[in-house]
Each structure stands twice: as C-alpha cells, then as structure tokens.
C-alpha cells in the first residue's frame, strides 16, 4: 500500500456540510441586516459563497492523500498551503474507529489516529474521514505489526495483588476541606449571590433615602455579604468532603489505583510507566502548616479524555511524610531534596516583575483619589511581599537523572522530572537578564493533551547552562 490513496468522495459532502454549519449563522445574520433592498445582490453573494465552499471542499478532498510507506503513515493535504504529515507508526497510540450516518450509508468508517502528541494544535492527530472497513482493518493490522511483533498476552482473570499505598484519615479530610474549599467556587458563589442581592435590596433607596435607612441597610448588607461567604464556604467544604471521602491509593503490579468519592465514586488508574512528572503543590496556608498536595502528571488520554493527565495522588499530606509514603512505590524518584536557590541579584527583578501591573494602578489611585488613594500602598506592599516570596521559593536541583524545579505562581510548585521524560528544554535570556548574568529555564513534559512542566526565572546563568548541558546529548 505504498501508492497514495484518496478518501471516499463522501468526504466532500461531509466537508461541505461542516463548512455550511460554520457559515450558516453569518448568512442568516446577513439576511436580517440586509433589508434595504438589493436582495438580489445578497443572493448573489450567498451563491458565490456556496460555490466557493463546494469548490474548496472538492479541492481539499482531491489534495488529501494518505499512504503507508517506510513504516510511516504519510498524509499530504492542503489547498493553498500544502502540508505533508509523516507519522512514524511506532508513535501511533491508538486507532479510534467510528461510523457516522453518511459513512454508514456508503459502508465507510472514520478512523482517528491518536498519537501521544498534543503539540497544542487541533490537528495534532490525523483523521481519515471515510475509508472502507477492509482498509481500516488493514491499517490497524499493519500498525500493530509494525509496533510490536510479539502479541500481548491477555491479562489473567486472577485477582491482581495490590498494596495499600495511602489512605486519607478523617482529620486530614477535614483539614483539606477547611483550607482548600475551592476559592473559585467561593468567589463565584458570592458573585452569584450579589447579583441576586440587586433585586432584594432597593439600592436606589439606600443611596437616596434617609440616612438612618441607609445605615440600617448597610448593616444588613454587610451581614448578607458575610452570610453569603459563610454559605459559599460551607457548600465548598461539603463538596470537597464528598469528593475526597474514602480517598485511597493502592498499587497493583504496574499501576497506581486511586479511588475516591462518597456519592459519586471514581477510580483512576495510572500506569506507572506513563508517569511523566511528580508535582507537589503548596498553597500559602498549607505551606505554613507544613502540608502540601502531590499530583502525578501522566501521559494518559487524548483531547476527549482529559481525566488521566493531572491526577491528585495525595490530596493533603505532611511534606515530611511524602518520601515515606511514595518512596517505596515510586522508586525512580527522589522526592525529598535540597534546592539551589536563585542568586540574590535576582530579587530586585522578582519585585519589579510583580510591580509592573500594580504600580500604574497605585499611581492612578493616588492621583485621582488623593489621600484615600494612599490606601492602595497596602496593595503595593502586598505585591512586594509576594514578589519576594516568589524569589525565595524559586529553586532548582539536579539529582542524577532527575531535574527538580521549584517556583511559585499562585501556589508553590515543586516538580520532579526524569531526564528521559522531558520533551524539550528551553533556556531564555533577555537583554536585562544578560547584564545581570541571569537566565530562565523551562522544561516541558507531556501531560494529557498538550504540555506541562516547570519554569524557573532568573537563575544564575552558569546554573542554567549546567542544566542545559546536562540535558544535551552532545558529547
């Protein structure tokens, strides 16, 4: 099957249908806007658009060819910009075969080819929109043969021995619910509450009415806001409790199995070999209490299955205990380690960076609000503090085949990545960084659809280069 093949012509109909669906609304909108006579012109425009759609659909079918050659699936396509996509067969993770109504009418199937790659673009995976069933089976077998000549054994029905890794205690569950009740949930709940408030309280009367009235209402408003916060917080708390109740991690031969939930039970299986990185997140309250949460970034899933990519492995645990809990099971990783911090000369840059957004706001506040504007200096102090915190948290370390990065965006993240899991590594150096002999480092790993990883800003230039040459395969 080395000669290039086209898809079944039914694809033209499919493409036309898809493009019509995308443009139909603009047609309808045009139809309503265009009411000042000249309807003929409008129909003419629509007719031309139709012709263009049909023509380009036909051309894109004509141009789209695929073939299996040299252990690659080679797809060439594109009307104006001609593209060639060569996918090595080893890289193909799975074939997803489905049938739509149109495909079924012609006895065709749609084959989606999933590679592990997300690469950020929509077209990361290839789709053969309509090929015959025999053809699909042939491709399937061809790929399977190319990938591994040895046939996999079917897993035995015997019960797989599993070791308990971790079980969350009730007190930890309560602490987790109390301290990380989903800030987003709270805020959105409060906002929703506020929008309801509009109807309940006659704001106009509050502002225009008698002073007494306003004062008593203000108290009610304050109480309502406070009450709203409490309610939102309690709801979030209960939600967290339900979600993470019975949290339990076990290890079978090749997988970590997480089960959680009270009303809605969930079970997540992470193959150990697909773990790309281990991440410890500490929000500021947890950090202060000496707690953190451990996440696993795994290469699971495709666009439609986001589940398996970033999984909470230990929702809340004493930082000192992580090594003891996970050490025996994640033998590749060294989870407790010291960090090299970024040099002192980087501190000012960290502070300036957090100032960029806030200084104009503060300046404007002081300029327009005069004395009251000075209150915004508190915000400035907070941002300064945050910048220094970021500076203090930034760090890195190399341990054999493992790169450890630590940085803070909102929460403090510590990422442990094995060298062979890093997809690409970047070092960056701006003009100002260069003058101070600083540089930034960013490592990308695969996690689900697209990437994840870690980045440390303003490391010492020599340290950046050290990590860079550690990763480089150039001898």
């Amino acid at each position: 099957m080395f000669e290039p093949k086209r898809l079944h012509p039914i694809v033209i109909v499919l493409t036309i249908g898809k493009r019509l669906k995308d443009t139909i609304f603009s047609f309808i909108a045009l139809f309503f806007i265009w009411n000042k006579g000249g309807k003929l012109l409008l129909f003419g425009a629509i007719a031309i658009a139709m012709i263009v759609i049909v023509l380009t659909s036909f051309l894109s079918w004509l141009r789209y060819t695929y073939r299996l050659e040299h252990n690659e699936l080679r797809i060439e396509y594109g009307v104006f910009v001609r593209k060639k996509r060569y996918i090595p067969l080893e890289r193909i993770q799975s074939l997803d075969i489905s049938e739509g109504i149109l495909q079924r009418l012609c006895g065709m199937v749609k084959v989606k080819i999933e590679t592990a790659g997300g690469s950020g673009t929509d077209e990361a995976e290839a789709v053969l929109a309509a090929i015959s069933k025999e053809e699909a089976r042939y491709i399937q077998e061809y790929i399977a043969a190319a990938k591994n000549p040895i046939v996999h054994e079917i897993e035995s029905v015997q019960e797989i021995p599993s070791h308990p890794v971790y079980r969350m205690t009730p007190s930890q569950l309560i602490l987790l619910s109390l301290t990380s009740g989903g800030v987003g949930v709270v805020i959105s709940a409060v906002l929703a509450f506020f929008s309801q408030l509009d109807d309940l309280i006659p704001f106009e009367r509050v502002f225009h009415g008698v002073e007494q009235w306003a004062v008593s209402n203000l108290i009610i408003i304050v109480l309502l806001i406070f009450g709203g916060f409490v309610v939102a917080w309690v709801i979030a708390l209960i939600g967290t409790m339900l979600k993470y109740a019975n949290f339990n991690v076990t290890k079978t031969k090749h997988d970590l199995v997480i089960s959680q939930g009270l009303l809605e039970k969930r079970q997540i299986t992470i193959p150990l070999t697909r773990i790309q990185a281990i991440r410890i997140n500490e929000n500021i309250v947890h950090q202060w209490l000496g707690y953190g949460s451990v996440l696993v970034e795994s290469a699971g899933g495709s666009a439609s299955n986001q589940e398996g990519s970033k999984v909470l492995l230990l929702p809340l645990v004493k930082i000192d205990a992580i090594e003891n809990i996970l050490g025996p099971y994640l033998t590749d990783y060294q989870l407790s380690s010291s960090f090299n911090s970024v040099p002192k000369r980087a501190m000012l840059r960290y502070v300036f960076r957090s100032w960029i957004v806030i200084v104009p706001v503060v300046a404007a506040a002081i300029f327009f609000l005069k004395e009251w504007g000075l209150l915004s200096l508190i915000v400035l102090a907070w941002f300064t503090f945050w910048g220094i915190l970021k500076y203090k948290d930034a760090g890195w370390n190399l341990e054999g085949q493992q790169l450890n990065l630590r940085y803070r965006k909102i929460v403090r993240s510590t990422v442990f990545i094995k060298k062979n899991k890093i997809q690409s590594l970047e070092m960056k150096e701006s003009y100002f960084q260069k003058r101070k002999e600083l540089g930034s480092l960013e490592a990308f790993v695969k996690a689900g659809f697209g990437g994840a990883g870690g980045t440390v800003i303003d490391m010492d230039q020599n340290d950046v280069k050290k990590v860079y040459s550690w990763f480089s395969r150039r001898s």
Partner: protein
Amino acid sequence: MILEPQKRISAKALTVWKISGVIKIVISWILTGVVIFLLHSFNGPFWISVLLIGIELISTYLFIFLLPTMKWRRWRYDVRDEEIELQEGIFIVKRTLIPMIRVQHVDTVQGPILRKYQLASVIINTAATSHEIPALEESEAQRLRHFISNLARVADEDV
C-alpha cells in the same frame, strides 16, 4: 561555555520577512490614513495625527529593516543524530533542546511567499510542544524532514 548552534536559515528568509513586513506596514499605513482622515473631518486634535505618523515611521523602519535582520542573525539551528537545537529571539534569546527520541512527527509548511522563493518551514512536534524552523531552502527542508523522521523512529515506548 556551550557552543551556539551553527547552521543559519536561508539568506532568502530575510527577503521573505521583509516582504511580509512591507505587507503588514502597508496595511497599518492604510489604517493610519483612515484614522487621520476621520480625525481631520471631525476636527480632532492635530498632535494625534503627528504622533501616529511618527509611530508609523518608526515601525516602518523596525518591521522592514531592523527586526528582520536581527531575527535572521539570531536564528540558528543544529540537527544532530540525537537532538535538535534551536536558537531564536531578538530581545529574549531562546535556546531549545529537543531530544530526537521525543519527536513525534515533522511537518513542512509552505505559504505563498515562501513557495515563490523555493523556501519551506519545518515544524517539529513533540508530545508536548511544537517548534518551527522558518524559511529553509526547499531541498534542505525535505532533507531535514526525512532525516528527523527517520531518526525519530528509534523510539522507546515510554511516552
């Protein structure tokens, strides 16, 4: 000290970037013209027009002359047996290492201007990121695509 990558992209890239710079600048001149015309007809302040023209003059110089040259000078790449190294960036110099075994697939892309000059861009995709080497000679782009996709096949299964 780590050596920087050695290979440069095609010298014709400079021409292509200048052309696309000209296109962008012409469009923004037209827009500026429209804005100035509107300002004039609504008796807007004169200094805004002067300011706009000033900005346009500067960006004409930047986008057609300075930036393409700087960009071209900085752009370097190396494709070795085990890894790909890229260097780019005008103000922020960025260097990227991509291990060959992490490459998922390679694309070559050719827009109308690039095609006219027999150039093509190579896009290298890993499972998490994608990287573009812009404006290589067509033959070089072809060669690279074959070279990389051949080497990328020496894959281990652990992604």
